[in-house]
């Protein structure tokens, strides 16, 4: 059974490949989260600020994700919109300990949602309220309030608190994302 199953997945589910955009401000933990989602032997040890963007792949039980890990630095943020067309889902990472730049994150989110390539597509958005381990971090409820997530009516979204270093909360988020993508495909 195991062999057949593996063969089936190798032949059939291989096609279920999903392109995901990973967005967020610089220093929010995008690369760390993506790295943590990869299998243990493929993880890198030291993570440096992303220049431009990088393409990463990871698999869940039924889907294969291709992630565009974008750089969040101010000067690279105008690159984001070039990849909106390809994105079938969005992972938006927020540094929940950076209260000062919450407005910047909100602003970037608004620009993202109002972009022509995103506005009329019903694509799932997963928010990670990252850096939950820090002492002065905000709760995921507070983060969703500050970002006015309740105003997103036409897209399925989900926010989960995460700790990118330990990997806490990531699985929950990815499971939700997988469910949403499968629900949309059927």
């Amino acid at each position, binding site marked *: 059974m195991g062999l057949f199953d593996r063969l089936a997945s190798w032949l059939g589910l291989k096609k279920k490949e999903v392109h995901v955009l990973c967005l967020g401000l610089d*220093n929010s933990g995008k690369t760390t989260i993506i790295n943590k989602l990869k299998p243990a032997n493929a993880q890198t040890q030291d993570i440096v600020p992303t220049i431009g963007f990088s393409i990463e792949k990871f698999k869940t039980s039924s889907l294969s994700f291709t992630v565009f890990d974008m750089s969040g630095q101010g000067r690279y*943020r105008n690159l984001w919109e070039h990849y909106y067309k390809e994105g079938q889902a969005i992972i938006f990472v927020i540094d929940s300990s*950076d209260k*000062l*730049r919450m*407005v*910047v994150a909100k*602003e*970037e989110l608004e620009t993202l949602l109002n972009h022509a390539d995103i506005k009329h597509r019903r694509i799932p958005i997963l928010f990670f309220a990252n850096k939950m381990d820090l002492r002065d971090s905000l709760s995921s409820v507070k983060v969703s309030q500050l970002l006015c997530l309740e105003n997103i009516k036409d897209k399925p979204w989900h926010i989960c608190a995460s700790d990118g270093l330990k990997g806490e909360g990531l699985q929950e988020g990815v499971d939700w994302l997988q469910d949403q993508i499968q629900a949309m495909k059927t």
Partner: protein
Amino acid sequence: MSSSSDSSREGESSKWLDAHYDPVAGLNSLSSCIALADLHGDGEYKMVVGDLGSGPYNMKLKVFKGTSLLSENALLDMPTAVVAFLMDQNEPRTPAVAVASGPFIFVYKNLRPYFKFTLPALEVNALEKEVWDQAKEDRIDPLTLKEMLEGIRDKAEIPLSVRSLRFLMLDPQEMDAFVNTYKQVPLKRQTVITCMATLKKNMADEDAVCCLVIGTESGEIFILDPEAFTILTRVSLPSVPTLLDVNGQYDIEYRVTVACRNGNVYILRRDSKRPKYSIELSAQVVGLVRVQKNIIIGTSQETLHGYSQKGKRLWTVTLPASIMTMSLLEHKSRSIQAVLVGLKNLEVHLYRDKNLLSVISTPDIVTSLCFGRYGREDDTLIMTTKGGGLIIKILKRTAQFEEKDTSSGPPIGQSIKLNVPKKTKLYVDQTLRERENAVAMHRVFQMDLYRLRLNAARAYVKALDASLTPVSSTMQEPLTLNAIVQGIGPRFKLILNLQNTSQNRPSMQLLISFLYDERLYQLKPAFFKVPLLVPGLNYPIETFIDCCSDKGISDIIKVFVLKEGKSTPLITAHISMPVSEGLVAA
């Protein structure tokens, strides 16, 4: 944290994001006392604020990280300037914080006190020193000491030390104690730091080593070596510097622009022992910012001037309110340089050259402004308000500053309609009648005018003969008189205001007499003398009138001002008495 934008202007809310507003942050600071620096070398910029505290207490060096206070250090004296600068080439490149207060510069590294620099003492007056030496050996008593010091103060060219000036202020009974306390301490004269800035030593890089440039109360500019804290350059100025702006590099070429208390701005260059250029302004300088090659000066007369670096005026802008503070906005990624001006009318204006780019409304008067990298955001504007609040705004990535002139379109006066009255048919008919009967109208009017003149002259001569007028303009006795009646009766108060209107001739020997119906009114003294009337002064003379009729009748009372020895009155006033309401009611 306020995420909702409260600014009413649509254009402004599209440029700035309200990151943080804390109205009770308790920050009393000035633009010169705020610095942004990557204190721990982790890429997260902190804000260092020299808090002036409330009055002479609670002066603190506060460090903010994000929206919260990271640390606090107590300061001994009022901070006049705070700068962050790199002292050495050591790794990691963590900047030191220099706080100028009094005659000292306190240098903090890793937020711990590290070094204290003291300004060199000034020369002491030799005579003063001698006098204090004598006091030390008890050869003179405090009173002689005071006399001698006063003598020195009046003629010496080197001013007295603070100790002598304090001594001269004291009361005689406090002098003994003061002399006994301080006579053993050697006499010295100190100056204090008024302003401080940094100057790159030999590289223009962001992380280059910086020299400190300080201005002192003694009217001097010092440039200090960053590592050894020795004085590299010392320049004298004609007045006390208050605001500094420095650019260039110490080893190559630099310019120091200094605004002084005498309302002048001086420009110093490398190797110049005295100011190279001087800009004279008609008002005190309240803000000085260099934008590229121009110097922008804000004055206390609500104006903003742009000067070239050789001191030539390029433009002037009049502002709607007085300037509270000024600062430079440098948008590095788009290489925009502009001036932020905090105004008293709760606005912060952004000027590029003389064009107003943007207006930010603030909930309180902004007293200090600082734009730069804070936290992880490059374009952050930090403002502290008069009430001690802290406002942080972030410039949007997509914000566009379009060049637009402040005076757009024709002046408002052009669109106001003039209030010209309308003419009706009545007016047109009247003009027709005038056209037809012009000759008759003219004749009749002229005839009437002759009659009017005759009657007026007759009445005037009659009044002059009887001296009925209340103003006399004769050369001998120029007087004016007016009378006021107060009260509702039966007792009235009569106030006669008598004034001599001549240049320099006092009136003497005048009398006042009343003429009235004795059945109706009673005046206690109906005839009295007037005091000497000094020219120009108003003499109120009061008497009481009692109404003795119970029928509710009123009559006229006449007042005569007479010259002693003459029977014709000089001036006369007629007072129509009101009906006595007291008796009517009774």
